[in-house]
């Protein structure tokens, strides 16, 4: 299942400028990772990624590393998957917040993703990277704001590609659902996984903060049970 596009139009703004800027920064940082840092990635990640042991011992970059970690990616598909989700779920969330508050919410969701990651895997020395925590925050926010929204999604039925418009709730629940079992396994076995499932869940649950970031008109609509 691959979400491709949110088919509904914007209501308040013409263009999702901050979403696009975030996508450009992510791509630019990935370019730096590949072509400038190259094989010498370990010291770079230690300094600019979110490592639970370092955060808990107040070593390393702290808040700065927490933010920079959101722009680092471990591979091209990691980057593309996150950017696609950022575009699909971020556009209308930005529309409801305005660009600056959207940025603040994005960073907040990414931060709470790291907070949960650090709390659950406090002994881990594996650096956490990727925009996925923040993107899961956007998914949660999208679900809160547009529960009736429909997402054009690529699905394969017996190797046949289809792209129906699926209700956002099913798309989001699918992506959150596939985090739960590995997250429980991490908790029980105290093992490090290559995918940061607890950060995804942390980002998703931080979506409740979105109500603080909405434009006044969008908030009034949210309270009035009309489409935000």
């Amino acid at each position, binding site marked *: 299942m691959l979400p491709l596009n949110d088919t509904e139009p914007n209501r308040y703004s013409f263009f999702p400028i901050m979403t696009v800027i975030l996508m450009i920064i992510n791509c630019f940082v990935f370019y730096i990772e590949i072509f400038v840092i190259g094989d010498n990635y*370990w*010291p770079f990640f*230690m*300094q600019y990624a979110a490592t639970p042991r370092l*955060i*808990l*011992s*107040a*070593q*390393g*970059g*702290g*808040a*700065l*590393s*927490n*933010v920079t970690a959101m722009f680092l990616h471990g591979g091209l598909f990691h980057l593309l998957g996150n950017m696609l989700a950022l575009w699909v779920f971020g556009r209308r969330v930005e529309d409801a917040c305005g660009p600056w*508050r959207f940025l*603040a*919410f994005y*960073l*907040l969701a990414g*931060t*709470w993703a*790291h*907070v949960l990651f*650090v*709390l659950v895997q406090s002994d881990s*020395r*594996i650096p956490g990277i990727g925009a996925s925590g923040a993107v899961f925050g956007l998914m949660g926010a999208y679900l809160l704001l547009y529960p009736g929204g429909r997402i054009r999604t690529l699905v394969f039925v017996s190797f046949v590609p289809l792209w129906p418009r699926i209700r956002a709730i099913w798309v989001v629940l699918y992506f959150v659902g596939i985090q739960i079992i590995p997250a429980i396994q991490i908790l029980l076995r105290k093992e490090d996984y290559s995918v940061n499932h607890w950060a995804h869940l942390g980002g998703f649950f931080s979506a409740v*903060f979105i*109500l*603080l*970031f909405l434009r*006044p*008109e969008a*908030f*009034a*609509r949210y*309270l*009035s049970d*009309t489409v935000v």
Partner: protein
Amino acid sequence: MASAEVLQRAIQSARAGRKVEARDLLLQIVEVDPRNEMAWMWLSGLVDTLEDRMIACENVLTINPANEKVRAYLTELQRQYKSSLVQKNVTDAIDLFNRARVYAERNDVDTALRLAEQALEKRENYEEAWLLIGRISPNLNQQIAALEKAYKLNPSNAQTASALEQLRYLKSNPMGAAARLEQLGKFEEALKVYNELAAKTKNSKEFDHIYKQIIRIEGLQNEKIRYVAPTSAIARLTFAWPSLYLSLALIQMGLNPFAHPAFYLWLGLPLVIVGSFLLSLAEVRSSHIVWQKLFGEHGDASNFARFLAAAAGWFLVIVPHVLLVLDSLNRLQNFKIPPMPL
């Protein structure tokens, strides 16, 4: 029986305290002889109401304008009558005003206004009634006129002075007035103001902008959007940036604010709150006390005042975040990179 005899009997009855009998006899006399001065004089003391006494005295004076004693008595009666009339008007006015207030609380503005106006007919210098009209009237001119009267009656009332200034500001800035009505959830009234403005600005540059506002408000009306007071919108938005700063500060302090106390991080929080408040204030159109205190502006502030508030807000929000980054960079300089786990 001759009228002189009847008069004597009436006087005797009056002196003996038989007032009703005396009055009946005197009335018989004046019916037959309307120019009987003595009968009218005695009657003026025997009739029940102030009005009847005054009529009797006036009749005496018509017959004999030189009767100074009766003239003086009539003047005293007139004074008493006037004072009783004023007292009655005051009581009536208070009663009408109290009813007007009840209707105003029930949002029945038309009835409340009618009753307040009736109260003012009874007692023109009724400050509270003028204030009520100034508060509830949907007509800006009527509001201003009412508050002017109230202010004239009591120039020491600072609240009236401030409200009056605010209304005058709105009168000179109809767009601001319409935006304010919209904030208060009074879409109908806002639409009325915009429609009036549209009629005035037809064929000018402003018309397009006003027309867009009309379309937007009609849309809001159709959607039946719930009214959210500007104060609560400002309060909600004020918490947005501090929630981010607090999260970042917690990460910086190793999720334990007591183990690694960083004084300036906590000092930054109130700055971010104030900055976020100013940003919210600049965004939400409202007649906030800050505009009045800092810029002396009534109603929602001018673009310049809002620009200043936004600039100050951004500064206060960004500075603590920059301090966080500087602290992080400082930590990174002293950071020994651990070896890669095998």
